[in-house]
C-alpha cells in the first residue's frame, strides 16, 4: 500500500525532473520544477518527516519557484519557447547515465542493515536543533543575512561609475 504511494510520489519527482532538463519552453521547466518539489514533499511524508515536507512545500513550492519565475521574467531569455541545448548534450547524457549506473549499482550491491521505518517527531527535531545544533543554526541565520545583503548589493542599479563606462562604450 505505502509502496504504491511511494511509486506515485517518485513518478512526480522523476517526471518533474525530466521536465526540468528536457523541455524546450523555459516556463514549463519552472513548473516542472514545482511538480518535482511537490513529489519530494510526498516522499518526505512517506519517511515520516512531516515537518520537512511542510518546509519543502513552503520554501521550494512557494519561494524558489516564484523567484526562478521572476528571474526568467527579468532576463527575457532569447526565444524562450524554443530553447536549444549545448552541443555536448550526448556526452552529458552518457555521463549522467554512467553516474546513475554506478550509484544505483553501489546502492543495490552493498545493502546496509535497515530497520523499520521510523520518523522523527517535530518536538524531537526542534529540541535537537535548538540545543545540540544551536550554534550552527545561528551561523545559518548569519549566512542568510549575508546572502540578502550580497544580493541587494549585486543587483542595485549603481552609481555613475558604470554610467561613465556605458557612455564610453557608446
Amino acid at each position, binding site marked *: 500500500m505505502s509502496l504504491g504511494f511511494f511509486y506515485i510520489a517518485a513518478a512526480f519527482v522523476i517526471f518533474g525532473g525530466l521536465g*526540468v532538463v528536457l523541455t524546450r519552453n523555459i516556463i514549463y521547466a519552472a513548473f516542472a520544477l514545482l511538480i518535482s518539489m511537490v513529489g519530494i514533499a510526498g516522499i518526505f511524508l512517506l519517511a515520516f*518527516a512531516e515537518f520537512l515536507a511542510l518546509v519543502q512545500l513552503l520554501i521550494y513550492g512557494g519561494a524558489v519557484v516564484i*523567484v526562478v519565475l521572476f*528571474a526568467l521574467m527579468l532576463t527575457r531569455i532569447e526565444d524562450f519557447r524554443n530553447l536549444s541545448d549545448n552541443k555536448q548534450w550526448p556526452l552529458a547524457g552518457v555521463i549522467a547515465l554512467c553516474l546513475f549506473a554506478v550509484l*544505483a549499482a553501489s546502492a543495490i550491491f552493498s545493502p546496509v542493515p535497515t530497520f523499520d521505518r521510523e520518523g522523527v517527531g517535530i518536538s524531537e527535531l526542534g529540541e535537537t536543533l535548538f540545543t545540540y545544533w544551536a550554534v550552527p543554526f545561528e551561523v545559518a541565520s548569519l549566512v542568510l543575512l549575508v546572502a*540578502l545583503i550580497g544580493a541587494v548589493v549585486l*543587483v542595485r542599479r549603481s552609481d555613475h561609475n558604470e554610467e561613465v563606462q556605458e557612455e564610453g562604450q557608446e
Partner: protein
Amino acid sequence: MIELLHFQVLASALFCLGVYGVLARKSAVLILMSIELMLNAVNINLVGYAAFRGFEEHHRSLGHVLVVFVITIAAAELALAIAIILRLYRNRGSVNVDKIELLKG
C-alpha cells in the same frame, strides 16, 4: 513495503537528472534549477537514512537537521545566483553560458 533501497535509487536518479541538466543546458537559470534538483536528491537520501537506519533517539534527528541546513543554504545560494544572473544579463545582455567566455584561454 518501502525499503531504504527505493530512496537511494530515487535519489541517485534525481541527482543524475540534475547532472545532465547542468552539463547540457545553455541558460544559466536552467542550470540553477538543475542544481536545485541535485540538492534535493541529497535531501531524499538524508531523510531516507534517518528513517531506516534505526539509530538511537538522540542521533536519529541529525539527518533531519542536516536537511534543514541544506534547504537554508540552497535558499541563500539561489538568491545570490539569481542576483549574479541579473547582473550578467544587465552587463552582457544574455544569460547563455556558452556566450560568456571572458576567462577563456
